[in-house]
């Protein structure tokens, strides 16, 4: 479901390419703080995981299926900057080696799927983490809410880009309504799967969940005296 060549005109494609390049450059600097010298191998494997997770389709009704975008999921699991890098690399590999998503639309795809979903998903997640009780069980619902918000926002932004550089005389209000409604449904699927995946990782390896680190740091080691029976 990536944007192909020719969907948006050349100036819009180039402009989103510049935005994507700038954001990836910022992420390159910032990701070093999230992973330090281990960045490349781990981010590479997280990217591979995101790609594999995107292969799973789920039905969204009317005989069609959507698949996970994984922006919010990657942000909560690996940290937002690493997530931007991972999704950008996934989209790059898909465009160059799998003919999925046009090469001129690569900037658009990275901006929408790699940056907007990660930014929205992470922002909602951090906000909820601050509001909700500081318990590990709250990480998964917060991640799900981030995922739920990220998909329709990306769809609306796509509609905005379509309004600027779209090559079709379509009624924009209708497109916006259809995109928003449709992607809210996809967003629910994305939210449920993101929440469940995060919950399962939090249950087994909470130390690997980047979004759970502040909560783990607050936990104190409790020692109890064993009463001999």
């Amino acid at each position, binding site marked *: 479901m990536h944007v192909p060549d020719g969907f948006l005109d050349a100036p819009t494609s180039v402009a989103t390419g510049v935005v994507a390049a700038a954001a990836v450059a910022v992420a390159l600097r910032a990701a070093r703080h999230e992973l330090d010298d281990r960045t490349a191998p781990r981010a590479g494997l997280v990217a591979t995981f995101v790609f594999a997770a995107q292969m799973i389709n789920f039905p969204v009704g009317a005989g069609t299926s959507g698949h996970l975008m994984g922006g919010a999921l990657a942000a909560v699991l690996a940290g937002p900057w690493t997530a931007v890098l991972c999704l950008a690399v996934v989209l790059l590999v898909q465009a160059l080696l799998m003919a999925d998503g046009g090469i001129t639309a690569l900037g658009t795809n990275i901006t929408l799927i790699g940056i907007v979903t990660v930014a929205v998903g992470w922002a909602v997640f951090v906000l909820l983490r601050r509001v909700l009780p500081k318990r590990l069980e709250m990480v998964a619902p917060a991640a799900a809410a981030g995922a739920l918000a990220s998909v329709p926002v990306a769809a609306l932004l796509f509609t905005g880009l379509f309004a600027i550089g779209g090559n079709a005389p379509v009624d924009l209000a209708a497109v916006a309504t259809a995109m928003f409604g449709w992607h809210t449904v996809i967003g629910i699927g994305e939210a449920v799967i993101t929440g*469940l995946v995060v919950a399962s990782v939090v249950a087994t390896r909470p130390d690997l969940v980047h979004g759970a680190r502040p909560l783990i740091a607050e936990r104190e080691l409790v020692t109890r005296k064993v009463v001999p029976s």
Partner: protein
Amino acid sequence: MGAGHGHRLFFHGHGPIHRAPAHVKVLALLGFMLVVVATPRQAYGVFAVEALVLLAVIVVSRVPLRYLLPRMVIELPFAVFAVLMPFISHGPRTDVLGVSVSEPGLVAGIALLVKGSIGVLAALTLASTTEPQDLLRGLQRLRMPELVVQIMGFMIRYLDVVTAELGRMMTALRSRGCDPRSPRHWPVLARSLGALFIRSYERGERVHLAMLSRGYDGKLPQLEKTS
């Protein structure tokens, strides 16, 4: 893994396009597609010339069309949108085969279909004639940031490992009566994905330690041409 195995779309061959340096091919694809995207939507003569140029490159590359054409199904979702365009657009109406459709919508739909198809076919041509390792070297020559090239290298290297692991998990689920597509079984599916994330991340840790013990210092020496 490593060079010589190719990837799923790679078509083994020794034609001139296969031998051309990857960075030239990537730049050619980008330039070509920018021209295609910038072509006015009713310049059908120009589209014909662009399609002929692409077909000429495919003929020279000796990748058979019957290999490339079935793989174009990847653009199907947007082809559906392009076909719908004449019906959902407004503007003056015109009759096509007795059906009233929007004229600007028809023009836009055709242009979208033509540009998208040329794009997919051109991208398939690059993918079918370029080894992943050559592509990485090409991107390195194009001054792609070292870290991005490395992450991409790891992704390409472990793509088959991780997707095969996912495939085995899905086989195991199905053999126990689980249908991963059904929302009823999403909790099981999600736990599998969680396990896949942990395995992938831990594999990344092991790979990193293994590389450190072999003198890794943040650069990948084997990306230089070794043949």
